[in-house]
């Protein structure tokens, strides 16, 4: 089934084209959602918030983007239970906007980190789990400076109880609590992850495990 996918675009988003290529390669339709505009939520079946350095990553990653008009619509979209995926900076934006719990802090090593990561899939009942099995290990690239997941103990407990911990690192690269690489909201329609599935689609890219998401 071909979906109508909205791809959020802020000043400084830089994975928008990569995500669009991914979406259209799956025969879905993609539109950009410009940050200054609100949109009609019934026009879309899915929203993806791609990675990059929205608003320069200034203040805190995702903080300035979280305050923009397009996020108002995305919140409304979320409240309808429709699927939203935040990748890397997109994950940070969803956290800053309060759509996902927690925050992403500076990597423990204080440096930006680009490497291949092995991830365990802990939850397959999300809107972005396709032909993937529980506990399967997949390989995706990470590239971030602030991917160190933090949440308060009570929140972490809730995440565990509700099985919201979606992806975990096999070798924690950034100090994330509970090795968290990706989480979902309680209803599992909103998902956020630091790794980049759109950079792992073909053998020549080094891994094809991005196909498990869309």
């Amino acid at each position, binding site marked *: 089934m071909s979906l109508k996918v909205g791809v959020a675009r802020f000043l400084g988003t830089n994975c928008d084209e*990569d995500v669009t290529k991914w979406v259209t390669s799956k025969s879905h339709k993609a539109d950009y959602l410009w940050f200054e505009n609100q949109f009609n939520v019934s026009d879309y079946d899915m929203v993806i918030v791609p990675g990059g350095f929205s608003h320069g990553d200034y203040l805190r990653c995702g903080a300035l983007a979280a305050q923009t008009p397009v996020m108002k619509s995305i919140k409304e979209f979320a409240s309808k239970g429709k699927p939203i995926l935040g990748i890397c900076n997109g994950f940070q934006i969803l956290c800053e906007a309060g759509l996902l719990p927690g925050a992403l802090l500076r990597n423990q090593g204080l*440096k930006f980190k*680009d490497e291949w990561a092995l991830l365990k899939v802990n939850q397959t009942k999300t809107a972005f789990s396709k032909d993937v099995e529980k506990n399967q290990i997949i390989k995706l690239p990470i590239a971030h400076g602030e991917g160190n997941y933090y949440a308060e103990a009570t929140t972490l407990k809730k995440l565990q109880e509700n099985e919201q911990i979606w992806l975990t690192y096999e070798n924690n690269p950034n100090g994330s609590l509970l090795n968290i690489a990706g989480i979902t909201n309680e209803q599992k329609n909103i998902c956020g992850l630091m790794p980049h599935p759109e950079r792992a*689609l073909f053998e020549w890219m080094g891994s094809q495990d991005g196909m498990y998401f869309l």
Partner: protein
Amino acid sequence: MILDEQLKSKLKTYRLSEEEYELMKSLLGRDPKPVEWPLFSALWSEHCSYKSSKVHLRKFSYRNERTPDMDGENAGVVDLGYGEKIAFKMESHNHPSFIEPVQGSATGVGGILRDIFTMGARPIMSANYLCFGEVNAPQMKYLMNGVAKGISSYGNCVGVPTVTGQTNINARYNKNILVNALNVGYFGPDMKMALSKAKGEKNLVVYVGAKTGRDGVHGASMASESFDEDSESKRPNVQIGDPFFEKLLIEACLEVLKKDLVVAMQDMGAAGLTSSSFEMASKGQVGFVIDLKKVPLRDSTMTAEDILLSESQERMLLICEPKNLEKLQNEFKKWSLDAVVLGEVQKDRKVKLMWGVEILTEIDPDLIVEKAPQYKRPYSKWAYPNRVDSLTSPKFEISKLVDSKLQSFKLNQHHWIHNQYDQRVGARTAMACESSVAFARLDHSGRGLSLAVGCRPEVMLMDAEIGALDAVYYPAFQMAIKGAETLAVTDCLNFGNPQKNEIMSEFVASVEAIADAAKKLDAPVISGNVSFYNETLGENIISTPATGLVGLRETVENLVPDSFSNAFENIILVQMNWVESWNYVEQTNNRISKFKQNANLNVPAFIKKCVGLEGWLKQKDKKISAIKAVGLGGIGATCLKMSQNNIGFDLSYDLSLEDEANMFKDVFYSFIVVTGEKTDEMLKLLKSYFSDLGVDVKKIGETKNEEIIFSQNTKIDFKKFQKQFSKDLEAAGL
């Protein structure tokens, strides 16, 4: 001639010589006006005018059908066929990076990106070439960390992957590091190329991008000056780069080009508005009227002179037709950028600078751009000081050598640097910093564009001509064995003081060697940059003509990696003995190596032949699991570099290596290929493929599980090696 004190000090301030002052006067037919001093100073600086190098850079004039003559545009262009083109260029930011490593290197990346997208190309790959001093030299860790941080923070944020690079460490860079940045931009079939030639009377001169501040006022002349002890205590107005603004500028500029709203476009690089306006006017053979009062300012107290020389980043100058202005301004507004009309194009070939209604000057742009002084600095013919007829082997113990190399990081790959670079944004990367050659997939045709940088300072130290030939041959060879044919070359010529005969001699030998190698490979040198005066307190750096090469491979599928992946496979060496030396070993003794050269061997033919190897083996249904060019330190050092993922090697197999020290001899050029296929068949095939080239083919060993064996006598503890080898420079505070 007796100059009065006042004039002398003025010449000093504006860094002009007495002869240059005389030339100024005779060109103008009068004494220069106050505002003209900074104009001449900036545009006649070494950095902007290439006054010491221009006569030699003409030696790079060779072009082929793929490389259109771009007539001095911002970057060189290669036509890849299928409607695809690329623009690429390399540039230095050495002095600013030494003064402030984070901002200096960041603005270096920003500057080279603008050179590319000002032509209308979308930047798709970045690379960097770095030379640092010894890790323990004063400030060096700070500089190393800062440079890596600056490049990564800027490159990652603009969303252009940094896919390859080289890091050299040598005491000769202790007081003058080198930071060279390269960028490749892509034109798809539907994209338009923009030029910097201004044209069309009454067309508007529009300033776009960030506001102007006092950044780097006098920066361009600073880059052409040697450091003195003072520069650390001065508080210059460091240029600050904002990758976020650059990203906005890229999108806005590509958008207005797509919508056909622009007549010409030029980035404001060194000497800012001055060089961009004068160059656009001069190239287009037109004049400009510009009101400096209209320039958007960050600091309202700036004078006309400040504005002319400001090197604030992320700004461009463009020419548009009056009817398109509104659309153009709307597009920039969408990206939250200023777009302000400064003036217009006029037929009269004068650049008229106004301050409101006051005319500051009216000057023929050619006087400053085209008539800039050119020098024929004295030099001597290259004499191969270290060439010998027979080479003696130095005495050393392998295990001690390996140990000392590990200690000094010479064997380490520079993961700590490139792990900070986003290597995959754009989703085009097929191979990046884990390999000696990077590959990106071209959007339209799906072919692989390869990129590698070159120039090994150790080889330059040994011989400038061989070193410069090698700066082209070695990366071309590295690409060839991965199945990519080299198409074009860019360079960044980092040298010391050109007024010294020995430096100028190395410069000329290098330029001629690069031009020669490039022509023989049919890969024209299409762009470049010269950085002279890399001299601090009379000490010059190693002459370092860094290069960047692009190549093409039919596809990005099935690229063969650099490192071992399976145990119990054959390690085969394919070797041409063009030059033999002992750089790797001698470096530990702080000695310059001698070398032996076999001038009868045809290196370019060997490189070209290598390009087809992969395809040919595939035809014969033979698989290979790793392939890597043998670097300095011969098969010994190269096999150590290839040892990853718990796979080591055993070289005790080859008994013909009577002297095991020979394993560490540098041999230009050879490669190691690893295969699980039958030994005899592989050897036979390879020999027949390379016959008539004077190339040796032999099995030298096998891959092993967690073992490193050089000979029956010399074994290295694998675990210990792995730990040291993969260790970041963290222990050293990096």
